[in-house]
């Protein structure tokens, strides 16, 4: 006994094309549906292009724990420069401890911070050795917590300036510009 392929058997033997078509189920709507992928691919490409344009290769600038930076409107773009952070009473230069601010807070007097001065001076010397013949930019970026007292800010500012970094930048959070007050 032969094995037949399963399927419709009724009216199979009628040698008429329109009957065969009907018997095979040709009159029904196709059950397979194709999805149009073009809008989806368009959307994905636009998203990729947008993200690539806004992508920052330098990544996020690390902010030491415990520092809350204030926001400002009239800002400049970040640049690559030594970072001096003041968190609580500790001063860090590129993540390394460089003194503390307790003596300034206690005395309430503007004073030079020797450890910070020496570290910045050493950084300046290294830069000059690595870039002979080039003019030293003298830029340092300060990451200062929002509640630090002005006397500490001024002491760090002046110490950096005397260590050969007269262009001091304060790191802030960028804010969209508001309408000017009339």
């Amino acid at each position, binding site marked *: 006994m032969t094995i037949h392929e399963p399927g419709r058997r009724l009216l199979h033997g009628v040698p008429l094309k329109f009957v065969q078509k009907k018997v095979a189920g040709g009159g029904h709507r196709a059950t397979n549906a194709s999805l149009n992928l073009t809008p989806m691919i368009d959307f994905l490409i636009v998203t990729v292009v947008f993200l690539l344009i806004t992508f920052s290769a330098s990544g996020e600038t690390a902010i030491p724990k415990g520092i809350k930076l*204030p926001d400002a409107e009239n800002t400049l773009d970040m640049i690559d420069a030594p970072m001096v952070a003041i968190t609580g009473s500790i001063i860090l230069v590129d993540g390394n401890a460089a003194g503390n601010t307790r003596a300034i807070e206690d005395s309430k007097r503007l004073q030079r911070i020797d450890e910070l001065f020496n570290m910045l001076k050493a950084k300046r010397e290294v830069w000059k050795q690595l870039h002979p013949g080039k003019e030293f930019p003298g830029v340092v970026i300060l990451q200062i917590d929002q509640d630090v007292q002005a006397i500490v800010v001024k002491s760090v500012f002046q110490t950096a300036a005397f260590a050969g970094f007269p262009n001091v930048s304060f790191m802030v959070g960028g804010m969209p510009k508001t309408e000017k007050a009339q």
Partner: protein
Amino acid sequence: MGGVDVGGGGGGRRETNSEINMIPFIDLLMVTISFLLITAVWSQMARINADAQVPGPPREVEPDKVEPEKQLHVEMRAPDKFVLIWKQSGTVISTVDVPRKDNLVVKEGKKTIRFPELAAKIEQEWKSAGSHRDASDKKFDQAILHTDNETPYVYLIGVIDAIYQPQRPLNVAGKTEQVPAFNVTFAVN
């Protein structure tokens, strides 16, 4: 799926229509989007510049004496007002009081303060008395900030931000850019 239909293909010949498999392409796009979203930086960091007035190294030949320039002194010691003083070599040229309203906004522990009235007044003062306005002028007007020793840093940034509101054109490498009109520094006392 994406494909190329060149028509024909009948008469027992091999089909000339070809199908491109779009699945690897879509996979690649998805992976790229995921990577870019994960590595995206959402908090935009920026900087505010200040210039310390440090004397340079001694020169062999002393330059000719130049007339000291006008400087804008911004006093923020009083709790109810700012004082804007134009001075030239110790001589007061003009004084303006600006009422001070400290609208400190605290959001999730982060403090923000703006002084829009001060910014507007400084802009007005610079427009009437500023010395360096031309795009070819490389010098900037100088603003000196006077503050109490105990003033929190967030207030200093609020005032420096206000001082930087007036903008002027500056020619940089053949292009004209808008830059802050003032250079800010701190008063020692």
